């Protein structure tokens, strides 16, 4: 189902910066997880990837950043291009050098390194002088003041949200031109969630950074995104402009939690919901 034309086409002025073409992913040689996914991220746009638990969002992101190999996953079909070049054979390090960074799901901070050291590793690919490094650090601390307070603590001992901030901050240190964000809002306090998305927006607007974000907080994701894809069971079941998506009835009901009558209280859901599945 397509609410709109392909986003890359819909924004002709923006050629696809990142493009995933009909990829199929198999874990462990037998478990087929992605069954032909195609998506585009135009330069300077924010694209949201939505879908239920286990739909394949994280897998898609890992396929792009080529981290999949190390989890015994293989791309068996299709290809991925970034800045017009095939990238599926590159190492993650080369991708970061080209400007594509990923924030992994589940934080993955370096537990034994301090928060600040964690951030510094983020700048590994950039050869920065001491002053530049400091400046970059300052910027992250500006975004996340909490991190400044905890800079000397070993990351392994910080709270869940602090680790999440640390992971995001670390990716920002690489000064990427494109960021893959896997559930950035997870475990983050509400006002900070807004802030994180503000950061995303401002990086997007001011520094022309493109984003592909997998997010469960559909509400806010669609508020900030330009385009959206909805995944289910390893397939794209719906795609289109964020605005169009958020006004779609199904999306509204199943992803935004608003049905015709507006937002319902969680307590008032008297029955388990009939799940809408686009795919049988």
């Amino acid at each position: 189902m397509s609410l709109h034309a392909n986003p890359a086409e819909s924004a002709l002025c923006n050629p696809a910066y990142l493009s995933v073409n009909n990829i199929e992913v198999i874990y462990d040689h037998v478990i087929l997880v992605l069954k032909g996914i195609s998506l585009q991220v135009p330069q300077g746009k924010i694209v949201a990837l939505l879908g239920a638990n286990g739909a394949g969002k994280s897998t898609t992101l890992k396929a792009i950043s080529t981290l999949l190999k190390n989890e015994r996953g293989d791309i068996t079909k299709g290809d991925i291009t970034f800045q017009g070049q095939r990238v599926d054979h590159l190492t993650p390090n080369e991708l970061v050098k080209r400007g594509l960074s990923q924030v992994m799901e589940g934080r993955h901070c370096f537990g034994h390194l301090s928060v600040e050291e964690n951030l510094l590793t983020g700048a590994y690919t950039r050869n920065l002088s001491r002053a530049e490094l400091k400046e970059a650090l300052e910027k992250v601390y500006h975004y996340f003041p909490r991190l400044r307070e905890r800079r000397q603590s070993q990351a392994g001992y910080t709270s869940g949200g602090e680790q999440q901030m640390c992971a995001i901050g670390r990716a920002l240190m690489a000064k990427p031109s494109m960021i893959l964000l896997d559930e950035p809002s997870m475990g983050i306090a509400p006002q900070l969630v807004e802030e994180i998305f503000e950061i995303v927006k401002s990086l997007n607007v001011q520094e022309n950074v493109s984003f592909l974000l997998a997010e469960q907080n559909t509400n806010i994701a669609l508020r900030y995104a330009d385009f959206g894809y909805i995944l289910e069971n390893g397939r794209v079941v719906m795609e289109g402009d964020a605005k169009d998506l958020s006004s779609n009835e199904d999306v509204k009901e199943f992803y935004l939690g608003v049905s015709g009558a507006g937002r319902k209280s969680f307590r008032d859901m008297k029955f388990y919901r009939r799940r809408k599945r686009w795919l049988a």
Partner: protein
Amino acid sequence: MFYREAGQFKTSYQADNQIFPLRQDRIGVSVLLAAAFVVVPLLASDYAFSAIFIPFLIFSLAALGLNILTGYAGQLSLGSAAFMAVGAFASYNFMLRLPGIPVLLAFVLGGVSAALVGIAFGLPSLRIRGFYLAAATLATQFFVVWCLTKIQWFTNYSSSGVITAQEIVILGQAFNTPVKKYLLTLVVVCLMALLAKNMVRSNVGRSWMAVRDMDVAAEVIGFRLMRTKLLAFAVSSFYCGIAGALYAYAYLGTVEPEAYNLDLSFKILFMIIIGGVGSILGSFLGSAFIVLLPIFLNLVAHGLALPTNVASNLELMVFGALIIFFLIVEPHGLARLWQIAKEKLRLWPFPH
């Protein structure tokens, strides 16, 4: 298409909890057991029994023991040979000092002695983890062998420090031919494998795996770390102890404490890693691999008619390279490879 579960519905949890829920597996295992108990004794040569099948079974048992500790309970140990030694020397002394004791009882007592030693050396595992523990278990290895050489009582003051296993007599039957020894070993190993399987599919097994995967969480859920870990050490050492006794009684006959050296510990560790950590089947596959591969390589090297010292070194290199190769192909061991093969068969002829 041959390997399908389609049409095999489980109508009770009991049926679903079976060791081999699939009919094909059940048939396969029955065939295998029939072969092991009937066909092999009829057909195999003495060489096959005493150089391949018996050591294979004994090593499988030891690997099973180590797998319980390392694979299921997550405590990496480099001291399995020491527990085997305890089992062997204890059985020997029970036989020697309690005349008339049934040999199987002596084995069990040997196993129990090993279990007690296991508990003693397992105590540090409450605090020490991972490779620290692994390196620390070397203390067991060296200490036990040292004791057995130092304290001559254990070897009945034999001048050369070796013990000679007494004859195995069960119910008036002397187990003195390779076939008989093989059958005895086979029965013991099958029984113990069954017990092991039962343990790992019930609460004990789950407690071990829980401790392995995340001990803090296991504690929060209500498993008692100390009990769980020590039980794992005890059961594992018991298995190793029995294997050690069989190693002396059904395999070598005359052994010195040195026979249970670090190399043997490592060998058993290889078995479980190659075979599959945390898999009963893996213990058997790994043991087969480690027992058979060198023989196979030796034969191949012979076929190539290389100069012998070149051949010997090449064998070693190929052995090492193959270990690495298998790890790369499947880090979870041969057992997982087998499982994946089965899953593929299930889908066959469709690729996914």
